[in-house]
């Protein structure tokens, strides 16, 4: 896959030609990404503002407002311009966009909606589909492109040149229908990508100096805008056509390419849909195959981080700068400033100074104690040995706990292991809808790769902790492992690996509970629990309600500590 770079450079040209396209997401690809940014800079007028958005930016700095520290120091109102205003007409680059806080993302989305007049470039370093930039922003930029797999040799390419602006090319009804049909075939529900695709087709035609949109333009729009957002494969046509040849990306870039069919009515919808099938990026294909495409609705990895300076039980004040939602503790600030007044009055008064002279060091801000969100991670043994009846009980328990969690707004994640693999069926979520679906789709049968299940649950717990939330692990298993960590079968090795993984949970200090779901309590599950230093709950005759009670009980002491 080398055309990632060519596509990104084409996208840069299109963005320079039509600012309304919003911007682009660039996934991965260090040097290639720099090259694209450099190209974009070269395509825009030299005085275009180009700003990077630091992840720690506060709301005042983003949208502007009173500069409290400066106002106090000078004794007069000092306003600061926000970054969003400064970047107007330019390019806003967001590094590590997958970790952008949702409040910041919301502000940027709002600015874009209100005609912010800047291009947004989201640099996405996330791993996998559950770590993506906030959806609110992904929706508002036309391009979502991957630079993964670009080789060093590809970097020696010509920088694109600034396009000569022409009139807006016309987009015929047939062409619109073709795009709309393609979007539907690819399972794209939102209208935004469709509008973006139409705009991209127009901009692409404009770059080619055409006065109407042709087939190549529609194909480019499909490849750049629609295909990366596919959530399903277009259904097979009746007669399987010969496989589409790989398109040369350069072809689309040549302004004067002579397509043999250049008038729009010659584009049957089916042809475009068929072409779209070949254009879906491989990683998206993989997602579709696993049934998870476009469901990564979490909206950004670090999004849910809640500031303990914002709410919770008051803890008293500490020195610091107000702003970004952090509130000033007025009385404490005064208390800090008063003792210094005689000394400060000896110095010449700054212009417009009030009765009390403040310094930046006097500022005190409020602190609050906040209980971290709990994420309950269920690791469900879906193997043949944990008979299917048990599995449905486990499902019932998860659903009941989920219904409760959703009232309390805690989060739930689901890991299942069977055969030789462990899978993350549900990343941490509050959504009942998604959880129900993931559970309904949970198949049973096969071997018991317990070690892998534990390892994956641990990995998830670490990720949860790194986001400032408290994980709680619930293992539903009979403890009889028969697939080792390396995927080979063999009871002895499998058990040894499972115990090793379990000890890892203990050494990481994670809270866990092991629920033995075998028909008769067995020593294996108890041993696993012991190695994990987790509570062991044999539930030979438990139904879903009893399971829930057990988990709620087990989670109690851990909650008190939090």
């Amino acid at each position: 896959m080398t055309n990632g770079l060519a596509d990104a450079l084409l996208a840069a040209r299109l963005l320079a030609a039509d600012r309304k396209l919003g911007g682009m997401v660039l996934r991965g690809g260090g040097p290639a990404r720099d090259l694209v940014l450099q190209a974009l800079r070269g395509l825009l007028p030299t005085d275009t503002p180009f700003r990077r958005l630091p992840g720690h930016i506060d709301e005042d700095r983003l949208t502007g407002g009173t500069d409290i520290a400066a106002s106090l120091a000078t004794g007069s109102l000092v306003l600061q311009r926000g970054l969003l205003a400064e970047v107007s007409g330019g390019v806003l680059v967001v590094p590590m966009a997958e970790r952008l806080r949702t409040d910041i993302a919301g502000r940027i989305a709002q600015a874009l909606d209100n005609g912010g007049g800047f291009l947004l470039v989201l640099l996405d370093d996330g791993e996998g589909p559950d770590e993506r930039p906030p959806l609110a922003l992904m929706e508002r930029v036309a391009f979502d492109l991957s630079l993964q797999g670009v080789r060093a040799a590809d970097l020696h390419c010509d920088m694109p040149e600034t396009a000569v602006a022409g009139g807006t090319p016309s987009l015929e009804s047939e062409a619109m229908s073709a795009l709309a049909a393609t979007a539907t075939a690819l399972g794209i529900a939102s209208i935004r990508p469709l509008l973006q695709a139409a705009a991209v087709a127009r901009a692409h035609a404009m770059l080619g100096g055409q006065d109407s949109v042709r087939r190549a333009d529609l194909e480019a729009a499909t490849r750049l805008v629609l295909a990366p957002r596919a959530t399903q494969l277009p259904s097979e046509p009746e007669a399987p056509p010969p496989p589409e040849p790989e398109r040369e990306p350069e072809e689309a870039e040549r302004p004067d390419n002579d397509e043999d069919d250049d008038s729009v009515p010659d584009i049957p919808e089916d042809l475009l849909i068929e072409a779209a099938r070949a254009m879906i990026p491989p990683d998206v294909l993989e997602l579709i195959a696993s049934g998870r495409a476009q469901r990564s609705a979490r909206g950004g990895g670090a999004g849910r981080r809640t500031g303990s300076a914002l709410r919770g039980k008051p803890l008293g004040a500490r020195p610091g700068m107000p702003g970004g939602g952090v509130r000033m503790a007025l009385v404490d600030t005064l208390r800090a400033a008063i003792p210094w007044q005689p000394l400060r009055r000896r110095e010449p008064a700054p212009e417009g100074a009030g009765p009390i002279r403040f310094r930046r060091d006097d500022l005190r801000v409020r602190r609050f104690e906040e209980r971290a969100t709990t994420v309950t991670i269920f690791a469900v043994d879906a193997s043949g040995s944990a008979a299917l009846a048990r599995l449905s009980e486990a499902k019932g328990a998860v659903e009941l706990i989920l219904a409760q969690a959703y009232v309390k707004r805690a989060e739930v994640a689901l890991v299942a292991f069977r055969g030789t693999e462990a899978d993350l069926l549900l990343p941490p979520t509050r959504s009942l809808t998604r959880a129900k679906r993931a559970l309904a789709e949970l198949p049973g049968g096969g071997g018991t790769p317990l070690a892998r299940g534990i390892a994956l649950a641990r990995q998830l717990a670490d990720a949860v902790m790194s986001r400032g939330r408290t994980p709680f692990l619930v293992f539903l298993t009979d403890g009889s492992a028969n697939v080792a960590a390396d995927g080979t079968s063999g009871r002895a090795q499998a058990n040894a690996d499972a115990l090793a993984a379990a000890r890892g949970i203990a050494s990481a200090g994670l809270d866990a509970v092991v629920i033995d779901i075998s028909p008769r309590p067995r020593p294996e599950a108890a041993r696993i629990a012991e190695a994990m230093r987790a509570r062991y709950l044999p539930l030979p005759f438990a139904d879903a309600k009893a399971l829930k009670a057990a988990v709620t009980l087990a989670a109690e002491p851990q909650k008190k500590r939090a």
Partner: protein
Amino acid sequence: MARFPFSAIVGQDEMKLALLIAAVDPSIGGVMVFGDRGTGKSTAARALASLLPPIMVMDGCRYGCSPDAPHTCPDPCESNKASKRPVPFVDLPLGATEDRVLGSLDLERALRTGEKTFEPGLLARAHRGFLYIDEINLLEDHLVDLLLDVSASGENVVEREGLSVRHKAKFVLIGSGNPEEGELRPQLLDRFGLSVEVRTPREIENRVEIMRRCASHDADSEAFAAQWAEEDDKVLQQIARGQKKLAKIEVPDSVLIDAAGICSAVGVDGLRGELTLMRAARAFAALKGAKVVKRDHLLHVAPMALRHRLRRDVLDESGSTARIDRAIAEHFK
């Protein structure tokens, strides 16, 4: 740039109707819009706000006092003159803090001059207009509580930081969210008056029509707005007529009995559901220019008035709209 005209929105009839009902009778208590991204939720809400005729506001009033009831805000209104202002539409950003929403102590003035003054927040700005919250399901709970409380009482009471301020804050609350991305607590959901589910039109013709209209809006928004001015005007007249009729419209006992019947059939407990259903039916009848509320009016608005009040059944996969339709079909066989 002119806003996208309300009448130019393709399809989405239920959402448009819910917004119109809320415009006719703001006491209905807000509209919750469920749906995927990119379905035109915020476009419709904004379009409705800009469609409504401008309101008269006392000059320089930070709380949007109406000339009919001047000097009712915490500030003494300095001027006695009033001027036209567009109906406020406040878009609440996701990361908004309590301070910004409620209003807060004007820190700068407090520190410099020692004066204790109140700096009005977004609630004051939304007075007599619309407060739109995208992704309300991602908003922090305590803020949602607070917003619903103010929207129900029509008054914002601030008792903090040594301030004691109350001012009017009557607005139509419009929340939107995608249940796939996290749900709203049932207690909060129940407090919304109406709820609608929006989907993107799947028919190719409709989608092409949307593309066509958006393209002409982008190309020349003023000309596009002019093209739709007549249609928008009709909607405006419909709202005005509805508002006028609302007080006079009759609700016969038979309709009240029907309303109670539907509520008990779908298992909605609490008075709120019944009252909202009745109000929505009345506003709908007023919009239609009827003199009396009929059973058809009631049945038409029943899904939007009740769907979000149904007890959630974790194991029942069938949607709430289907459950209401089923109950209605059984009840009025």
